[in-house]
Every structure is written in C-alpha cells, then in structure tokens.
C-alpha cells in the first residue's frame, strides 16, 4: 500500500478503514500503478466524506436533548470516583502534578490581583478614588496645603466630595510602650478629610476627626501590626500613649488592612498616623511643611475628571497670585487613583510578566505530564473500552466518560492547587524583598482569584483531558479485541510528542533560570570599587528628634569619637551614604571651560578616614586631612578629592592635583558657589554593577546629616561589637535610636531585590520543571518497557545480555532527550529576547548556562529511566513469553 493511499485512508472512520482498503484493493486487483493508486485514494476520500457526513447527520437526528446532555451523567461521575479509588497511585500522581501547575499560576495571579485590581487595599470603592498631582506636563513637582479650602470649594459643585493629604515622613523614633526602648517606626501625618476620602474604618476605637487633624491634637492612630506587637492586641489600647520623637501622643484608634501603600515613595507599612498639625513639633528637620505632593480625594460616581481638573487649576491659579512665581507654575492634575499606583509599580511589572510566563510554562508542563499519565491509563483500559463499544456504547458516551474523569481529577487538583497557592502567598508575604513591591503586602485568594483559577482549570481540562477522551473514543474495536498492534500507533505518537514537549518546556525554564542566576552571580561579584563585606553602615537621624542641623552634625561627630574610644579605630562618616547612586546637575567651570557648564556629578561629604575605611585607593595626591574636616563653609578654596572619571572628563591636560575649579554646591535649598582645590584623586566607585560611574567630588563640608551614615570597619564581627556600638550611641544621646546597622553588602543586596526574587523563583520553577519532566520520562519509559516485555524476552532468549537490553532502553531515552532539546532550544532562542533587559554580564545564550542545562536534563533523563532500564535488563524470557 503506497503512502498516498495510506494518507487517504486516514480520513476513513476507524471501523471502516480496513474494510474499505480491502475492497478498493480487490476492485483494482491490487495493481500498484500510479493511476490505480490515485483512483483508490480518491475513492477512499469520497467514501470517508460520505460516511462522516452521514454519521453526523444521524447523530444529530437520533438522540434527544435530554439523553445527549445528561442521561447517564450520574453514572459517569460515580464511575470516575470508583476509577480514581481503584487506581489511587496514578490518580494521586496526576492530581499532584496538576496541583503544582495550578497552584503556582494561582499564586502569581494573586500578586497580579493585588497590584492591578486592588491598588488601595482597605479603601472603600476604589473606582471613585482620585489622586491630585502637582506639577507641569511631564514634570512632577509640589503644591501648597494653604490652597486646600480653595480647591475643595471649586471642586465640590463638580462632584468632589473629599480632598485630603498624607505625608509619609519615613522613620521616627518611637519609644516602645512596654520596654521603653527606642526603636524605629514609620509615621505619616494626615490632614482633614484624608481618612474620610479613603472611606477607612477603624478596627478599634476611632480615627482622627478633621478638626483634630488640622489643629494638631496630641493624638495618633496606630496600625494593627503595632497594636499586636506592643499592646498585645488588648481592647484597652484606646487611651494608651506612645512617645514619638520625644513627644507623647494618645492612641485613639487602630487601622487594619490599610498600610499607606498609596503614599508616594512608601516602602514600609505605616505604623503611626499623626495629625498634620503636629508635624512641626514632631519633625523639626522638615524645612517646608506647607508643601504637598499628591493629594487623595473621592468624587461622586459619574464625575467628569477633566472638568474637575479644569476647575481645580482655575482655583489654584487664582490662589497662586499669592505664591512665589516658581511655586505658582505647578498646577494640580487629576488622575484615577489606580492609574497612578500602576505607573509607580511599572518597574515591577516586568518582573511579574516574567514570573507569569514562567508559571504558565510550568502549567503547560504539568498538563502535558498529566495528559501522558492519563493517556497511559486510557491505553491500559482500551480493552474495556473496546468491549463497551462492541456492546453498543456510542463513541460520544465513551468520550464523555473520560471527560468526566478528567474533570473530576481537575476539580480535586484545583482545590489542592488553591490550597498550595495560599501556602505560597503566605510564604511570599514574609519575604524581606517583598518590601520593594508594596502592594504585595496584602495577598488574599478572593473571588476574582478563584474565578481566574476556575478558568485555568477549565483550560487544563481542555488541554489535557480532551486528548485521552478522543483517544478512547477512536478505539479500533476490531484491532484491540483481535490484539492487532497497530491499533495503538496513534496514541503512542501522542505519548512521544507529549514527553518531547515536556523536555522542551523544562529546557526553557532550566536555561532561563541558569542565565538569571549567572547574571545575579556576575552582579554580586562585580567590583564596585569599595569593600562591601567588612564595612558596617550605621544610620542615625538626630534631626528626627527635632535637632537643628548643627546639633545633628555634632551628635554624629560625637558618635564617631565615642566609637573610636570603644577601640574601633576605623570609623568614618559619609553624606550621602555610599551606594547612593544618584547625582545632581551642578554647574562647574574648570580651566578649560570659558563659562560654567551644567554636568551630572556626584558629591559626597566625607571624613578623612573615609577612603581607608572603604578601601578606595588614592591614586594621586592625598585624602582630606583631619584639619580640613569640618571647616566653615565660607572658607575658599574648598579642598576636594576627585574621582578618576572626573579627571578624565574635566581635568585633562595637566596634573590634576593642585588644580582649582568652580563648583556649585547645594546646602539646603540654597546653592552656594565654591572654588574647589584638588588635593587628591581617588579610584572610581559605582553604586551597583549596572550603575554608571559618575564623576565624583569628595569634600569635607558637612551638609544636612539626614541622608548620611557612619561607616565602621571592625577588626572582628561578633555580638559584642553590636553591644559596643549601641553603647556608644546611648552614651552620646540616650534618646537617639539607631535607624539601621547593616553591612554595605546587605544594602547592595536590598538594591538587587528584584533580581534576587527573579533568580530564586526561576530556580524554583526550574526544579519543579525538572522533576515533572523526570516523572514524565519515567512514566513513558516504564510503559514502553511494559509493552515491549515480550520483545525483550525474545531478545534475551536469543542471547542479548542485560547490558544490551539496558542500552536499548537508554538509547530510546537519549533519542527523546535529543528531540526535546532540539525543540526546546529553538523555542528558547526565540523567547530569550524577553530576558535580555534583565541580565547583566552574560548573554541570553550564555555558554555555561546552556551546558549546565544540557547536563541537568541529561542527568534527569538518565535518572528517570534507570529503574525501567534495570527492569528491562532483568526480564526473564521464560516469564515474559509465558505471560503473553
């Protein structure tokens, strides 16, 4: 029979195929000419079309709607439960496989849900929440709180119900009520109408009233986590006191479920909500407390936001006649609240997309694995199906029976997957790196997530459940009952395709994980130009206690001296902190410039030991001396150390040491020009592996200390060291809390939080994918060995050794692995473009990662097939032939 005739016969229904082939061959006397073959193929196609159309018509005519849909469904469900119990091991394997895929997908969808659909957790009706941003087109700036009454009056006729403000000032010193120790807390100051705009409800006591917020009563609302940690969640929390930056506030209520994630730049949950009118007392360091950034408001449903915006801008323009021209230039712009929060989270959306892509691949892999396991079960039961068909069961009924079994398995897997998702989200919630993704603090499996889970489950049924149903319905009754081997050739091809697909999908995840982890390794090992591992960073904020900048600077210097007296010889200070990473546009004028030019520079105020403590070499000249440190800012020229990149950019043509240049310095809001004298050149440093090297100027004029740190290089790191440091700080000022005490390495790790999350999650997905692929290969190889028992028995009887049989099995595994690797490599070569922007120091086709991927897949495939190969090698020919 030629290939053309064979292809034509594929269209003929299974139960007529052999008979039609026989009859057409008989009619043409078995002639093998091209003409005869063409004629046979044409006739076969005509017969097939006629049979299929007629059967379809009869099928529609024959059955009644009731019988077609529901008759016997109860029996199918009972049968599915019985089958599941009878084949418990394979059912558990299939359920576990699907639960992993569904659970991972649901967990990641929880993250999407929190980010995209619940950007204001705890707030009522997010659809009518608005944000009012001050700025100019393309520029975010600030406005003034004094304009509130005008803005509210102008907006009210157009639908504005409430408009308020909250300012997140970051860390404050809070004295713990029970222990009396100073510790850090995050504080936000709220204006009138802020809580009302959000529609918040307290879980204990009450919230601040509008009058209390504006007038500045000594009251506070605390968070649920603070209530749990310091008040034992006691009901008598109302009326208790907390001390913030040395001032006593009475607790009036507790907020739950709302953590202030709407506040711009907020990276930590808010612990204390205090009245805006108390900000001047509690935060002496803040220079201009009338400034507002983003306002929060609520409008009536149906309000036109463009019209509201026009009205607010007109009102602000009128009010702005009393403001300085620069401040009056910034107008209020109205946005839907959710849009604003989404734009802030855009940097994290790339991470979510990659994570979602990874778990969808894992879901496909688990579906393919489950389909293979279910297919194996279907093939094992094909004799039963053939008997049912022979006894008169319709093929639709057979298919429906298998679909119901698949749906029952998916239902159990979905329930297990949701449970797994809840465990996974609970684990993710506790991770430190999650603080860079503010909305993920509130992760719940809600109705929307369950609906998406149901859609995933339905897709899974289609992806993996329909295949066994089709295979069962197409059972060749005669072939199976007469034990004709070709009766199962089509399912075997499906099985092989599925296992090759699993290997290809596993390659995608393993290769991606390899590249991401290698990239992270390159970032972590990159030389930033300073010592990250042996330097502690001690952050103090004396200005939070209301100290003036002069007193704050003295506190810091006294702390440095106290630490040196503790025996820590290597102590320095730096403002801003190392690894700050950002520069400023400053005007400079060197000898080669005819007039001042604006360039992006980094400037740091550092103590004399700074370079020694951080291990930054001085390549020319010297470091700043102790006598130069703390000089009055009015003394010119200002001695500076510049970086090598500064020399390359601005001081070419002559030795840099001894050169002078003009530089515009910033101190508070005033820009003070200085003449700088270069006394030394330091090696370049950068804030991160991906960060660019900025030309840097190191000087010794102490600015505001708020963003600085004390740097310590201890001789030894132990618990006693921490006590010594705390003791030194306490001796200088008992009320001063330690904002942070970390190594520079942990600061760098915090900056790499997204990359670390991706690397860890990708490794976890890759491990799951490898295990799933292994189980898929093991199942297929075991099936093949079982089906070929007679073949192996004959080979063994004819003299094949155990090693030969084992090699035969492993060769088959090798062929499948090779096919899967080729398919997977082709897909990866296309898909790797989505990794390019997330990696550093390696390419998406990194050789080491690809080699490790191949080794991992090969090892997994061999490990999976070891047991079946061993079983094949030990087949007793007598037993095998007798069993047939």
């Amino acid at each position, binding site marked *: 029979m030629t290939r053309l005739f064979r292809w034509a016969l594929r269209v003929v229904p299974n139960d007529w195929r052999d*008979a039609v082939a026989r*009859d057409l061959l008989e009619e043409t006397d078995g002639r093998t000419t091209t003409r005869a073959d063409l004629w046979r193929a044409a006739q076969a196609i*005509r017969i097939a079309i*006629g049979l299929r159309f007629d059967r379809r018509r009869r099928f529609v*005519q*024959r059955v009644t709607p009731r019988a077609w849909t529901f008759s016997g469904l109860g029996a199918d469900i009972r049968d599915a439960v019985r089958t599941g119990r009878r084949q418990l091991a394979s059912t558990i394997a299939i359920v576990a496989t699907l639960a992993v895929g569904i659970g991972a997908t649901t967990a990641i969808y929880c993250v999407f849900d929190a980010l995209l659909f619940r950007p204001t957790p705890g707030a009522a009706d997010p659809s009518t929440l608005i944000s009012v941003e001050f700025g100019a087109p393309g520029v975010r700036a600030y406005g003034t709180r004094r304009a509130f009454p005008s803005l509210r009056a102008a907006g009210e006729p157009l639908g504005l119900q409430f408009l308020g403000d909250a300012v997140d000032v970051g860390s404050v010193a809070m004295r713990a009520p029970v222990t009396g120790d100073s510790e850090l807390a995050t504080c936000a100051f709220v204006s009138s109408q802020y809580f009302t705009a959000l529609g918040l409800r307290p879980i204990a006591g009450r919230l601040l009233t509008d009058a209390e917020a504006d007038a500045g009563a000594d009251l506070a609302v605390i968070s649920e986590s603070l209530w749990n940690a310091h008040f034992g969640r006691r009901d008598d929390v109302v009326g208790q006191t907390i001390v913030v930056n040395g001032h006593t506030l009475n607790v009036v209520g507790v907020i739950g479920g709302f953590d202030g994630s709407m506040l711009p730049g907020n990276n930590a949950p808010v612990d204390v909500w205090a009245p805006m009118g108390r900000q001047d007392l509690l935060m002496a360091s803040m220079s201009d407390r009338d400034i507002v950034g983003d306002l929060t408001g609520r409008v009536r449903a149906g309000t036109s936001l463009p019209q509201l915006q026009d009205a607010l801008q007109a009102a602000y323009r009128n009010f702005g006649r009393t403001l300085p021209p620069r401040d009056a230039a910034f107008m209020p712009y109205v946005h839907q609240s959710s849009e604003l929060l989404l734009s802030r989270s855009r940097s994290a959306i790339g991470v979510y997309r990659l994570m979602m892509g990874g778990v969808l691949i894992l879901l496909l892999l688990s579906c393919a694995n489950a389909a293979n396991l279910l297919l194996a079960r279907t093939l094992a039961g094909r004799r039963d199906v053939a008997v049912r068909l022979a006894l008169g069961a319709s093929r639709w009924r057979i298919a429906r029976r298998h679909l119901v079994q698949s749906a029952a398995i998916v239902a159990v897997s979905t329930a297990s997957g949701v449970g797994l998702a809840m465990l996974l989200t609970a684990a993710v919630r506790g991770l430190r790196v999650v603080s860079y993704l503010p909305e993920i603090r509130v992760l719940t499996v809600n109705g929307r997530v369950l609906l998406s889970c149901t859609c995933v489950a339905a897709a899974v049924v289609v992806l993996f459940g329909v295949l066994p149903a089709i295979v069962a319905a197409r059972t060749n009754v005669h072939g199976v009952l007469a034990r004709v081997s070709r009766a199962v050739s089509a399912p075997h091809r499906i099985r092989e395709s599925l296992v090759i697909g699993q290997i290809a999908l596993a390659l995608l995840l393993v290769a991606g994980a390899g590249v991401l982890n290698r990239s992270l390794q390159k970032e972590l090992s990159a030389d930033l130009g300073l010592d990250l591992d042996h330097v502690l960073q001690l952050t103090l904020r004396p200005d939070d206690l209301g100290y003036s900048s002069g007193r704050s600077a003295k506190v810091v210097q006294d702390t440095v001296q106290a630490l040196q007296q503790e025996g820590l010889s290597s102590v320095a200070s730096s403002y801003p902190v190392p690894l700050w990473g950002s520069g400023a546009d400053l005007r400079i004028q060197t000898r080669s410039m005819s007039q001042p030019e604006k360039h992006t520079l980094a400037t740091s105020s550092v103590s004399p030991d700074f370079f020694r403590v951080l291990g930054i070499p001085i390549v020319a000249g010297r470091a700043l001396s102790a006598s130069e440190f703390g000089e009055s800012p009015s003394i010119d020229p200002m001695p500076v150390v510049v970086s090598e990149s500064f020399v390359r950019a601005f001081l070419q043509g002559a030795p840099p040491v001894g050169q002078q240049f003009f530089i515009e310095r910033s101190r508070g809001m005033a820009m003070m020009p200085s003449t700088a004298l270069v006394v030394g050149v330091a090696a370049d440093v950068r804030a991160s592996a991906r960060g660019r090297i900025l030309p840097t100027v190191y000087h010794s004029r102490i600015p505001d200390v708020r963003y600085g740190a004390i740097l310590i290089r201890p001789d030894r790191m132990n618990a006693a060291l921490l006590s010594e440091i705390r003791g030194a700080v306490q001796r200088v000022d008992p009320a001063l809390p330690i904002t942070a005490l970390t190594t520079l390495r942990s600061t760098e790790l915090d900056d790499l939080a997204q990359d670390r999350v991706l690397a860890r999650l990708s490794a976890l997905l890759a491990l799951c994918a490898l295990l799933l692929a292994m189980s898929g290969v093991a199942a297929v190889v075991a099936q093949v060995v079982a089906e070929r028992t007679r073949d192996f028995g004959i080979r063994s009887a004819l003299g094949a050794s155990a090693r030969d049989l084992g090699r035969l099995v492993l060769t088959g595994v090798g062929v499948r692995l090779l096919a899967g690797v080729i398919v997977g490599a082709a897909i990866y070569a296309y898909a790797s473009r989505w990794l390019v922007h997330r990696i550093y120091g390696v390419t998406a086709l990194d050789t080491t990662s690809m080699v490790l991927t191949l080794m991992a897949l090969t090892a997994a495939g061999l490990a999976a097939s070891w047991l079946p190969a061993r079983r094949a090698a030990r087949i007793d020919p007598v037993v095998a032939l007798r069993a047939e």
Partner: protein
Amino acid sequence: MTLDSSRLGEVEQLVLLAVYRLHGEAYAVPIRSLIAEAGISLTRGSIYITLDRLEQKRLVSSAFTEPTGRPGGKARRVFEIRPAGIAALRSARRALDRLAIGTPLERKP
C-alpha cells in the same frame, strides 16, 4: 426526527436484499455488483453509507474475517441480515403490494 428502523428507503431495500441474497459473502464489492446486475448503479460511497445505516438500525450485523495471509493484507467486513432486517423487507414489500392494488402494477397471486 428519529431513525425508524422499520421504514426502509429505496437504497436501503436494495442493499438489504443484496445482503440477503449474498448470505455470508456480503461485502461492499459483491453487493454493488449484484445491484448493478439488477440495472441500478450505485456509488461506492452510498453502499458503505447504507451498510452503516443498516447496521446502526440493527437490521444487519457485521463481522471481520481473518486478515489475508499476504503481508499488509486487511480484514474483510462481511454482513449478515438479521431477523429484524428480514421482517423490515417483508413489511416494505407488503406496503408496496397494498399500495399497488387496483393499478396495472398489482401483482397477481
């Protein structure tokens, strides 16, 4: 509309009669030849469709013979009329005879 197994179409009657006459050797090729000898040409597809319908109506039954001895040989599907099929043929014949009474086509006893 459901399939009424007792009512036979014209082609179904022809094929059923052919199966009855071929007794044990009825498969598509000789059935078509026999009907052609009676002066009616049917397409191969209509033969297979009709046999499929008749089997679904349980008027005929089929069985597969053993595959031929030569390599690649296929099993033959042969049909046998069932008692219900014979009854359906008789019923169809009686209906025709009753309708023909009083016409030149009436069969004389």
